[in-house]
């Protein structure tokens, strides 16, 4: 047992946390990121990489289903925490670490988990054809999006289904082999006229460095997004206004810059922007942050490698620079608006770009998904 507990003690000194933000609960997410950094833990990029699933805010029905599926994909040892108040973050992470270190509990959890993978549900559309494949779990999807905001009836009954043949019920071609109950990819013409396969890939809502609540239905040919459609998944109940970053505030700008820098692979600059954001959220005097912000902005604008790497996506680099400049301006009390793409315009901007570029372009679009979630606007 000596080795087991020593291993557990070492392992829980560097915990990987997968953070999920519900639209409107940005402050809780920032608080988690700050505390994770302070402890020398790190953010996870995917469930396979994560020990802790930290859910910020109260997700609506469909988003909650997505979170449940991701929770089932964490390999374990695993712990799940739920956060509403930024002040609760530190004790919640303490609890999570204690839970992770409890070897008996983690072994029992692993023992209890089902032997078949949890199948979750498809990222269902309003237009119906994907609903057919979903079999019985589409009752909430045929209604309109209001369900997401009312929270449905909290019925996650379909989550328990692990039956592998589940998906083939409504599907036309029964001849097709369906390993694991999932159909094989079908062909489609791509832009070079090659008859290769097309994949339907949902991006969001559970994805690091992704706008909270955004769900992008992508049709992929190779790694190129042929077509995209936008949806917004809302919270169970509207978040109190104080729970989110103020849209356009210096902290919000730094937060968005940190996301973009992280996606462009510049870890140190992203950390710098995130530290600035956290200082702006906590410190009494934002003017103290000005010199640091200026240094970061200079460093980013001078980086030749960043300019070169993003030359075919100039709007991405521009957006980072504009974000940092406007953060500085608004600290000084000068209003500095940043251009924002309406959600409806997003698909047209993304068609024909590769998956990695799409991630950068979405982060650089200056979206205000939380506002769309508040008004209940689900963009088709």
């Amino acid at each position: 047992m000596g080795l087991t507990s020593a291993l557990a003690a070492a392992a829980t000194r560097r915990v990987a946390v997968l953070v999920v933000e519900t639209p409107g609960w940005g402050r809780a997410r920032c608080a988690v990121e700050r505390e994770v950094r302070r402890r020398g833990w790190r953010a996870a990029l995917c469930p396979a990489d994560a020990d802790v699933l930290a859910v910020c805010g109260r997700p609506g029905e469909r988003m909650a289903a997505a979170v449940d599926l991701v929770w089932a994909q964490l390999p374990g040892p695993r712990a799940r925490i739920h956060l509403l108040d930024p002040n609760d973050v530190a004790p919640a992470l303490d609890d999570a670490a204690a839970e992770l270190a409890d070897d008996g509990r983690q072994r029992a959890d692993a023992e209890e988990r089902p032997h078949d993978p949890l199948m979750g549900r498809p990222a269902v559309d309003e237009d119906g054809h994907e609903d057919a494949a979903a079999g019985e779990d589409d009752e909430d999807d045929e209604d309109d999006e209001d369900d997401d905001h009312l929270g449905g009836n909290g019925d996650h009954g379909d989550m328990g289904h692990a039956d592998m043949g589940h998906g083939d019920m409504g599907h036309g071609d029964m001849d097709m082999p369906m390993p694991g109950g999932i159909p094989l990819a079908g062909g489609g013409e791509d832009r070079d006229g090659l008859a290769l396969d097309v994949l339907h890939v949902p991006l969001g809502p559970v994805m690091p460095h992704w706008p909270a609540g955004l769900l992008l239905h992508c049709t992929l040919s190779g790694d190129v997004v042929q077509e995209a459609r936008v949806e917004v998944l809302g919270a169970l109940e509207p978040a109190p206004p104080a729970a989110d970053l103020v849209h356009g505030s210096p902290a919000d700008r730094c937060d968005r810059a940190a996301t973009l820098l992280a996606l462009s692979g510049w870890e140190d600059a992203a950390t710098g922007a995130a530290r600035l954001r956290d200082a702006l959220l906590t410190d009494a005097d934002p003017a103290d942050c000005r010199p640091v912000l200026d240094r970061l902005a200079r460093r980013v604008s001078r980086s030749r490698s960043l300019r070169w790497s993003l030359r075919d996506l100039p709007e991405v680099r521009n957006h980072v620079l504009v974000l940092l400049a406007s953060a500085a301006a608004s600290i000084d009390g000068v209003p500095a608006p940043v251009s924002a793409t309406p959600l409806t315009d997003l698909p047209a901007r993304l068609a024909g770009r590769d998956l990695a570029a799409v991630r950068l372009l979405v982060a650089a679009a200056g979206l205000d998904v939380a506002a769309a979630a508040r008004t209940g606007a689900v963009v088709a």
Partner: protein
Amino acid sequence: MFLAAAVMLVLAVGGAAVALLLQRWTAVSASPLPSLPFLSGWRPQEHALSRFHARYYPVTLLFLAFDVEMLYMYPWATVVAQVGVSAVVEMFVFLAVLMAGVVWAWREGALRWV
């Protein structure tokens, strides 16, 4: 001469196998967790393994031409000093022809795939 390489190969494969076995003791569960692939919390609509459109296939052809050239390059490298000027001239004329191909492919847009 290749004995050391063979021993290293056995050691490396054996080491990886031992590491995977060791994990059966140290991990919270000996069996792997069955899981769907990560798709932001949704069930995949189809399997990811598919006929993938590798947009850069023109570059692969260009690469192949140069890669075959490497077969000559290594033996050539060992005899440059002995053969002298003619070896250098012949090889670099050949490389220049290949580079002309690269420039042509570039002008045809084979190096851009966005």
